[in-house]
């Protein structure tokens, strides 16, 4: 048995002239929560669709609980619960019909979880999907995914576009389910707050390439921001392998250093700055710096 719930190796996918995902390696240990960060169009959804078997990679392999999501063995479909970005559902169906429909598809369907969530989410089973609010649709989607009792939960932007109350309720249910069943969770988001709260490990994808994947705190500490002033006017900071980027605003330089930052920091000090200090970076800052850097490449 493999220790990885999800194991992606050297996966690439191209749409026409666009390289959506390039040589992506990503292994998620069982029982952990992975947060997938990337701006719109970075390749998050394409990666997820290959994981759940909706898209075939041009190259590379994807394994979900050791199985090929595109293989002939359909039991792989029982292993994961998937909520797509558009939360695709038959809009003419009533809530109870959607649940009945899913129950037929998933042998592990848990009637108790479904009933409990229906109640906690305050969903009316007799309403049609097309009459529901955005938040209610999101709740039906998450309910359906959890009631399948998945070993892996794959969520594409589960909380984006939702009001704070719905978001809170959905996060609570995700946390409770993970705690109760030790599920592996793979969720993509551009809401950094959710990633901070839930993820054990974080991956950042830019232009189809995974630029970093590590424990959340290590990702956050992977870059350091240094602020300094130089006595004499200089047009640019000389290149150094430890410096990701440097910008100047109102005479103050801001350099982003890669950790370990010691060497690059010594290098900056050798430029005789008048004043030099580190400033804290949030996960959001780190994400923005990687994205900006990759865009400029």
């Amino acid at each position, binding site marked *: 048995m493999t220790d990885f719930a999800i194991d992606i190796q050297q996966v690439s996918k191209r749409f026409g002239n666009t390289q959506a995902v390039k040589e992506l390696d990503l292994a998620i240990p069982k029982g952990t929560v992975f947060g997938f960060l990337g701006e719109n169009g970075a390749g998050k959804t394409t990666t997820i669709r290959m994981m759940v078997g909706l898209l075939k990679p041009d190259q590379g392999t994807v394994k979900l609980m050791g199985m090929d999501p595109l293989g002939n063995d359909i039991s792989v479909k029982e292993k994961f619960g998937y909520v797509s970005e558009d939360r695709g559902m038959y809009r003419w169906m009533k809530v109870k019909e959607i649940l009945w429909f899913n129950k037929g598809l998933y042998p592990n369907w848990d009637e108790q979880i479904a009933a409990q969530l229906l109640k906690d989410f305050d969903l009316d089973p007799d309403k049609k999907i097309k009459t529901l609010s955005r938040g209610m649709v999101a709740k039906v989607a998450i309910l359906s995914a959890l009631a399948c009792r998945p070993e892996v939960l794959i969520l594409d932007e589960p909380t984006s576009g939702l009001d704070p109350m719905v978001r*809170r309720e959905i996060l609570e249910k995700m*946390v409770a389910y*993970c*705690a109760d069943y030790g599920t592996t969770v793979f969720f993509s988001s551009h809401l950094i*707050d959710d990633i*901070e*709260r839930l993820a054990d490990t974080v991956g950042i994808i830019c232009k189809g390439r995974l630029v970093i994947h590590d424990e959340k705190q290590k990702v956050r500490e992977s870059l350091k921001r240094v602020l300094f002033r130089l006595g004499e006017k200089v047009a640019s900071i000389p290149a150094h392998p430890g410096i990701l980027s440097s910008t100047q605003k109102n005479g103050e330089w801001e350099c982003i250093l890669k950790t370990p930052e010691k060497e690059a920091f010594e290098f900056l000090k050798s430029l005789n700055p008048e004043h030099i200090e580190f400033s804290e970076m949030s996960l*959001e800052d780190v994400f923005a710096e990687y994205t900006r850097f990759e865009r400029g490449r």
Partner: protein
Amino acid sequence: MYIEIKPDSPISIFEQIMDGIRVAVLSGRLKEDEKLPSWRDLAVELRVNPNTVAKAYQELERQRILYVKRGEGTFVAVWDFQARERERKRLLHDSLMQTILKGYQLKFTADDIKKELDSLLAQFSMLPEGEGA
């Protein structure tokens, strides 16, 4: 059990939970031998990764701030006086250290900082003078 969680703070959520419980214990908000919520329930309440809460509980248990009774749950440990004092002082040190660093960053001298602290303390007449709470 409410603990303030700031997801965008440079302090990790793991440490925020540890500090939150530690301060609650040392301030007496949580009483000795009081039962804590299960890590599962606290994770749901705070909407954070349950593994993180479980790890914080484990670490606090290792530090003998909490103890586990098999099948019953996690409780606040009974501290001897010295250990409690040591821990209270450590928390105060940590927090003053932050202030001092900020002061130096703003180019204040040790004397400036001392004077400012004294004047602030004088304003706080409600603090019990010269006795440990």
